[in-house]
């Protein structure tokens, strides 16, 4: 479904930062993969490279067999099949929840307004806030905003969902409602790549855990292996610090 081969990414800001160094990984259809690691380890960069919000310098990234780093690939088409959920929600501030959900459906998927609204309503129901359809993002709580953002991504009927620290900007009491939505999605068989610090979520839902540090993938394994019997010292250190 998603495959990265020898991906490199370097940022040149004030100094050179090697965000990704020779990263390869594979995410199967229907799998839930959780990427964890200390901040600055390149996990968000990897996720953003998967839908070209950052362009990888080197390597290959295949989405459903399509090499997105090939200049001939229409990235917009690939992105329609990939939902993305951001840490800071990034809901369109000038649109209501309903407007947020219908816009890309009508503009990109060319659905009729009625069709888009029905779809949007069904998704708002699914994330548990149908009564907020007419509200603007400013009037929603963080948890509600993030649920609308998940619904917005789902409205495009994506094959893969990417989550970039979806609960990091939330107040603790709102984390649960967002994780519940994500767990439901996972149970329904959605292919998911999740960058998170929620170890509980990783342990409970993940099929596979990827641990990254300093731009490299240190360890890949099942949650059982990862949390009970990690093989690398770096992983052990990280887990001892956060658990």
């Amino acid at each position: 479904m998603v495959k990265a081969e020898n991906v490199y990414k370097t940022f040149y800001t004030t100094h050179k930062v090697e965000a990704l160094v020779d990263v390869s990984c594979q995410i199967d259809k229907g799998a839930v993969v959780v990427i964890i690691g200390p901040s600055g380890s390149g996990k968000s960069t990897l996720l953003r490279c998967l839908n070209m919000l950052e362009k990888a310098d080197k390597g290959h990234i295949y989405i459903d067999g399509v090499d997105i780093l090939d200049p001939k690939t229409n990235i917009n088409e690939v992105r329609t099949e990939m939902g993305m959920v951001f840490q800071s929600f990034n809901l369109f501030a000038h649109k209501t929840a309903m407007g947020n959900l219908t816009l890309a459906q009508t503009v990109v998927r060319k659905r009729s307004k009625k069709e888009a609204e029905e779809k949007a309503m069904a998704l708002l129901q699914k994330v548990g806030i149908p009564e907020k359809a007419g509200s603007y993002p400013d009037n929603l709580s963080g948890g509600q905003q993030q649920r609308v953002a998940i619904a917005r991504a789902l409205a495009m009927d994506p094959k893969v969902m990417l989550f970039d620290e979806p609960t990091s900007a939330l107040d603790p009491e709102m984390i649960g409602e967002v994780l519940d939505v994500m767990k439901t999605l996972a149970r329904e068989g959605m292919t998911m790549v999740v960058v998170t610090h929620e170890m509980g979520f990783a342990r409970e839902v993940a099929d596979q855990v990827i641990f990254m540090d300093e731009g490299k993938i240190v360890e890949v394994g099942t949650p059982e292996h990862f949390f009970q019997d990690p093989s690398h010292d770096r992983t052990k250190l990280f887990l001892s610090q956060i658990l």
Partner: protein
Amino acid sequence: MVGGIYFATQKVEYVWRWYRVPQYFYYKDTVETRAEIEGEVASLTPRGDQVEVLVRGEDEEELYQVPAEAVMVGEGDFVYPGDVLGSYQKWKVGILLQGLWLTLKVSVLAVFLGIIIGLFTGLARISKNPALRWTAITYIELVRGSPLLVQIFIWYFVLGTMFNTLMAKQGMGQLSPLWYGVAALAVFAGAYVAEIVRAGIQSIHRGQMEAARSLGMNYPQSMRHIILPQAFRRILPPLAGQFISLIKDSSLLGIIAVRELTKATREVVTTSLQPFELWFICALLYLVLTFALSMFVQYLERRTAISG
């Protein structure tokens, strides 16, 4: 201050004649219909509220249309060329009102063109394409770096002369100074609008664009549906300021023979010798235009505010 000015004008023995001002807005003009041939008034035929006066001479006849109540001749009267057949008074638009209208017209045209130029230049200014970006930067710097007065001269006396001469050689008509004036103002305002647009777009959080792109929208779609609507609301106040400047700058167009409000006022001042009243009136008329624009923009701001 008003009292002070009044006192000072008394000291210099200025005579205020406000009653002379209205005639420059609206005045009664006498319209006379005069006979062009020598002969007898053969018949007066009413037709609607007009009367057809038929003058028959030795070997020619002429028909004149005169409003019924204005007829000053009767059947059988003998008239000579130049004799008044009918005379009536008609309200006409005065020179100040004409000037105000022209200022309004020039400003509206320049604002529209300025918005279009500014929008596209602003987008080019933040484009990744270096050719587009540097063209935009060059244009903005050139226009902002020289006085508007000089630019108006260049538009009319250099570009205008060139263009009109070329048109004449092709046997085509000339473009009036008005259009060079509009072009000068629009291009001038466009450079400032471009920077306002750029600042507006860049003030929108990067995440908005990323979210739009991640949903599969391409760059133009994201700009149109996500970024520009949000930027528009933010740039309204500085945009209003820019266009108020533009209305006032249109007063410079008098120098290329566009008879807008300021030039009209200058002409009236030379004939009437009432500069005090007229310049105050002129300022007041500009205020009417700029205030109306301010109100309109405030209305837009309220309308585009996020409700709820």
